[in-house]
């Protein structure tokens, strides 16, 4: 177990280094750069203008030089400045990360709150009306995009009840109630979007576990349904679910990008969208590195949890 944990931990910096190369390289494959955005057609009309801007933005050096500079700054904890707004990327992320993290965490919590019990009930009541309803619901949640539901809720809410979500985001630590008033709905929609897949997997796993010999033995011993399900079946059924929760993190990040846009939340997703359109390299690199780090860390947590839940997991 210890070797497994150490090996997993050692892989993190290696993977992160690979991520920096990919993030830095891919962003430069997108056609056009920040200068094209800032100077538009005038940079073509007046090449000197374009050159001046590229120099000012640090884009006139060779790509390896630019990469080395960025990596050096990274080691000093500096993600650079936005080429367009001239504001520090780290400062921006400091304000925005809690918004996205809260949205993602509550969304994930809501998805589990919905999906796990529903999946269990659906498995235990297999092929009954309630099973069909839950499975239909799960497919619907997988099929209907969260942003569409969000726009419908906002549009109809205003038209029927003169209701709209609060305009002003308030931090949780500043005013928890005001914070939850704006976050609960996008978090619920995010959770609903994720819950479809988790619910279906929970049901499948439960069905498989419920057919195992040791479960039959538990029934034969005369244990109550609650004990059989909660104590004997659930822990084993949860192992693959932990994996899929880890895999859902990138989906979760993608979901927050769209919901932040619809609900006007000042999170990391909106920052990424606007900076990608503007080819703002330091921001794109910084945000993608952050997201990649979150995904790497979440996978690490999944791997370690997996090892904890299933002691048979070993390093091959």
């Amino acid at each position, binding site marked *: 177990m210890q070797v497994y944990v150490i090996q997993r931990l050692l892989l993190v910096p290696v993977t992160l280094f690979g991520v920096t190369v990919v993030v830095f390289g891919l962003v430069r494959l997108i*056609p056009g750069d920040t200068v094209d955005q800032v100077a538009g057609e005038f940079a073509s009309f007046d090449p000197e203008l374009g050159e001046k801007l590229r120099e000012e933005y640090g884009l006139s050096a060779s790509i390896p030089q630019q990469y080395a500079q960025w990596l050096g700054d990274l080691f000093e904890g500096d993600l650079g400045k936005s080429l367009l707004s001239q504001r520090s990327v780290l400062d921006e992320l400091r304000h925005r990360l809690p918004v996205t993290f809260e949205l993602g965490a509550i969304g994930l919590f809501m998805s589990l709150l919905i999906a796990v019990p529903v999946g269990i009930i659906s498995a235990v009541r297999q092929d009954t009306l309630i099973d069909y309803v839950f499975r239909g619901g799960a497919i619907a949640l997988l099929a209907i995009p969260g942003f569409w539901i969000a726009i419908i809720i906002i549009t109809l809410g205003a*038209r029927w009840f003169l209701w709209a979500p609060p305009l002003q985001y308030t931090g949780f630590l500043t005013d928890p109630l005001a914070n939850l008033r704006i976050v609960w709905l996008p978090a619920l929609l995010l959770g609903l979007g994720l819950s479809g897949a988790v619910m279906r997997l929970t049901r499948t796993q439960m069905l498989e576990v419920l057919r195992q010999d040791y479960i039959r033995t538990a029934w034969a011993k005369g244990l109550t349904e609650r004990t059989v399900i909660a104590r004997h079946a659930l822990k084993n059924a949860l192992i693959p679910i932990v994996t899929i929760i880890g895999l859902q993190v990138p989906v979760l990040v993608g979901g927050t990008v769209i919901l932040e846009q619809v609900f*006007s939340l000042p999170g990391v997703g909106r920052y990424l969208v606007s900076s990608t359109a503007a080819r703002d390299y330091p921001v794109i690199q910084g945000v993608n590195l952050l997201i990649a780090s979150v995904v790497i860390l979440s996978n690490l947590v999944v791997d370690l949890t997996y090892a904890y839940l299933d002691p048979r997991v070993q390093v091959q």
Partner: protein
Amino acid sequence: MTQPTSFWHRYARQRVSRRRALQLAALSGGGLALAAACGGGGDDEEAREGGPGQVFNPQPAENIVPGGIYRLALTGDPLNLDPQRNLSFTTDLFVSGFVYSRLYRYKTGPGYDPTLYDPVPDIAESYEIADDGLTWIFTLRPGVTFHNKPPLNGRELDSEDVAATFRRFMELPARYEIVLRRTVERVDTPSPNQVVFRLKLPYAPFLNQMASSTYLWVLSKEAATGELDPSQIGNVIGTGPWVLDEYTPSQVMRYVKNPAWYGAPLPYLDGQTLPIVPEYATRQAQFLAGNLDSDAPNGNDLLDVVNRTPGAQVTVGNFPNVLNFFFFDFNVNPDSPFRDERVRRAVSMAVDRDGLLEALYNLSVVKNAGYEVTARWHNAVPGGLTRWWLDPKSEEMGEAGQWYEYNPEKARALLAEADYEGGFSTELHHPTAIYGNTFDQGAEAIVPFIRAIGIGTETKQEAYVDYITRTFVGDLTGMAFALETPFSDADEYLHAMYHPDGARNHSKIDDPTLTQMIEDQAVETDLERRVQLVHDIQRYVSDKMYYVPLMVFGSPGFNVAHPWVQNVGVYQTASFGAATEGGVYVALTEDAPGRSQ
């Protein structure tokens, strides 16, 4: 205690207001019936009917009680807070227009047509032109101070601030310097309240350039010389009517009134809150729920929004100053069919301009509801610059007007005359996902018209950066469907697009006759004479059809305000300096939700 802006308060008010609205409607109907019965005509404007809530010839509100916070949504963050380092209209409109001043600004007021763009003094008090026409002396308004924020702490503006701003503008690799570079030789400051611009040529539209909302927003010399970085939130300090109090990116901009503004006691409002709401449906929902004071729905949603907003005040903006056009490859491709002017004329005659307007703006539904909407076709000068624009439908166009007529049969005949009887194939380039739905829909809708006369088009949708750095500068095969940045003087379009030295000469036009015509109008200081010269140019280029002017974009625009907003539509402007030119006059009634914030 229930706040006056609570849900139930607003719900109850809407119910009451709806009843009141019905009563008012009934009274109005009765009044009109009575007038008819008596044979009375009354004042034409009073009797004028429009769509629900449409505001005609608005007059300044009486009994204004200053105060309150106006709430208006932004669609996105300004790319940069520095007015000289961006090409984002959100910076001009929502930062520079609020915080900074120009030497001159554009006139607004009751009954004034904002498409005339007449300059009036902003922080300059007056100007003089020397006899040579090359020296412009601006005298600054006395007592103009910067906002009372550190490190400037309300110090008085002087001529060095203006000169330093101009020098920075010319030195910075920014977007618009090229336009001023050809006209201004240097700037001097003979005294603290005088700024002297020495021009390279007696440039007639120079005053207009000093009022333009895309050029010279006056910074402090500290900001202009690098002592203070104006792109940082705390350093946004100007002399304008609004002080930036808070900016949380992707969330909100808050402005408070500048009590020391030269126009005090204006602004009427205590401040403006601009939440950043990128999603159209969300902005509309926030307006309907009463959380925003105004909204700009598209034509398809206008009636629904108005019907759900008791007492809605609707203004129809008809300022089409965003030029929309086709340009061609005829000067870069020796085999281009578009080298023949008959082919270009055929393209123009293939397009049903009114049909496209109908399709894109839902015009007949809006008109049938009673809204008075006029939609103009662009010429070489866009329809939003009425002083300079020559209506392609007018008799003044002479023979050249015929090429704007929708006549596919004649278009095919023109192609046949040019030896393209069976038509030909070409590429049609346009940017995508940058100018909004209307433009994208227009780019799709226009294709069948071109194909109907036998020109097969292969559509090339391009990412903006590809388009702006390659196609837009004339490096293309075939034709392109495009928009131009809005300007406020005819010369900015004519020189940029038709002069061989122009920065936006997309079709690479080099016609000596036309070049001379453009240069002549630029130095003609007699206004009437210059208008005639600009009209002559429009007739000339319409006959040549170097570009094919169209009309798909940006106008008419609709604005809906809640009944508690005062002075709606009175001080209209089509410039990005709206927060100064119109925003200082906006007021709120005493029961407005913005009063309790």
